[in-house]
């Protein structure tokens, strides 16, 4: 078991490292540099040079990357070229927004999808199944940002129930914090719910068709008993995969949602970082993102190993 975990961990680490190299390379290839963007249109060449030197942009690329890497390993993600503040701090601030958004959306998705998916699987052959499936098909086809716009138009502008945009920190006012997150979480979560409903249903069907279920049924165990004791536990593997996929999808989808609802989250920070060629900031974010995805994948793999001993010994 230990060897399995260690191997998975090392490959995860490698993935993250490679991602950071790719980003660095891409930023180098891109026209424009932080000094230019900071100084704007009417800046003199002398001013730009001075700022370049100040920001350390004149050192050779390999040296800059290694310097960053050395710092990152020690936990120091460097300073943002644009904001003049530690990257870790900036990212931390944005996590306050992105984490509740992502977790909230994933939760909404799960709370809707798991029961519905199981239900549809159990009610196979009746009209409930195609109904749920069709609804989730259509739901998955709706762009989440479009949904967000419609929500804003209706709930914020028309009805004035909820704010149209902006984020209120929890520490400042918990009630308004909650209200500022309702629409974005719903816009993001409902789309995810549709996708996950179908996944859950498929996973449940897969499990329900397996021999041990038929055996249990044949033995006369009550339907509900079958479902909850055996099927669900075995479906956990797939469900955990689904959760992992859902969380990573949600991170991606949140960039657009943050744009629509003007939430100061990680997605918009990344957009700004690219726009201002802020290498340390972007690297920090990509590192975080890659680490999260890979970390989630790793956790999923490990839980496979825990849940299904057959996998451990591959």
């Amino acid at each position: 078991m230990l060897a399995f975990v260690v191997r998975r961990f090392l490959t995860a680490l490698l993935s993250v490292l490679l991602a950071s190299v790719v980003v660095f390379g891409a930023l180098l290839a891109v026209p424009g540099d932080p000094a230019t963007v900071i100084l704007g249109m009417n800046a003199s060449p002398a001013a730009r040079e001075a700022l370049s030197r100040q920001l350390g942009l004149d050192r050779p690329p390999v040296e800059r990357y290694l310097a960053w890497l050395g710092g990152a390993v020690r936990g120091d993600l460097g300073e943002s070229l644009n904001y003049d503040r530690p990257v870790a701090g900036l990212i931390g601030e944005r996590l306050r927004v992105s984490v509740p958004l992502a977790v909230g959306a994933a939760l909404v998705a799960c709370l809707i999808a798991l029961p519905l998916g199981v239900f549809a699987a159990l009610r196979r052959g009746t009209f409930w199944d195609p109904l749920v499936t069709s609804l989730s098909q259509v739901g998955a086809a709706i762009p989440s940002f479009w949904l967000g716009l419609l929500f804003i138009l209706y709930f914020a502008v028309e009805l004035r129930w909820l704010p149209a945009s902006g984020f209120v920190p929890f520490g400042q006012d918990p009630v308004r914090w909650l209200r500022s997150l309702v629409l974005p979480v719903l816009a993001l979560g409902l789309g995810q719910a549709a996708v996950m409903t179908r996944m859950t249903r498929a996973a449940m069907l897969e499990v329900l068709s397996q021999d041990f279920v038929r055996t249990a049924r044949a033995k006369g165990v009550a339907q509900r008993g079958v479902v909850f004791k055996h099927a669900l536990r075995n479906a956990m593997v797939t469900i955990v995969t689904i959760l992992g996929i859902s969380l990573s999808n949600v991170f991606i989808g949140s960039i657009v949602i943050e744009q629509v609802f003007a939430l100061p989250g990680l997605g918009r920070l990344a957009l700004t970082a690219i726009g201002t060629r802020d290498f340390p900031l972007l690297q920090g974010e990509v590192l975080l993102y890659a680490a999260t995805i890979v970390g989630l994948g790793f956790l999923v793999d490990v839980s496979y190993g825990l849940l299904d001993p057959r996998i451990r010994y591959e």
Partner: protein
Amino acid sequence: MSDASDGPAVAPAAGAPRRRTRRVRRRYNLWLGAFLIGTIVAGALLGLVWSPYPPNAIDFSAQLQPPSAAHPLGTDHFGRDLLSRLLFGARSTLYVGFIAVGIALVAGTLLGAVAGFVGGAVDEVVMRLVDVLYAFPAILMALLLAAVYKPGTLTAMAAIGIATVPIFARVARAGVLATKESDFVEAARALGMGEGRLLWRHVMPGAVGPLVVQASLSLAVAVLAEAALSFLGLGTPPDVPSWGNMLREAQGFLAMSPYPALVPGLAIVWTVLGWSLLGDGLRDLLDPRTA
């Protein structure tokens, strides 16, 4: 950009009581999906040779009009005919989707098939590389590409394509792994068939089914992805109508007229639904357990 699929190649259950409704439903998926996509393709083809108005023809005397005899779907803020733009946009949407998924299909299958077939260290290395791609947010990739070259159709295709490679690699690899141990492959090998030929002629065909299904599902995702990228301003340029573009421009005028936003939005839903249903239907069709 959510994954509109049920997950890679998860086959529906066999053995549950076969009822008429299931067989009907299987057909329903496939035919409905085919119909939806068919209309889009027809629209795109039509748009190639004819449209009521040139899609970019500006007419300030007809701004933001609701559907009428002159403009069956209404007009946008420049007075451009929405139907004409819809037809042209079908082309852009399909084009971006096909090319992006095409890239992913070819590259991903190559990587996954080789990894699965050869196995061992090659398998590990290739799949780790694939994992890196998977861990990399596609939107960031699109942004970086857009900055290096210019925002446009090409970068959108490349970004979506590259981001979809991991999925195809995994499906191809799974498909290859499933067949490579089977008896007829052993037999062919015993008869002296070369490894390459073996891979191509005997092992790959087993993977084709899931790949086709995945292609259809990924096309659904690609349409949504293009819309999202265009919404962020990274998709097709302003003088090339695409549905994502149209949505982006329609936002500011929602209060004045809902049609510029409704028309492309519904078209997107229609197309994504079409590809998903088609993919599901194909999966039902090709799954040996239910055929």
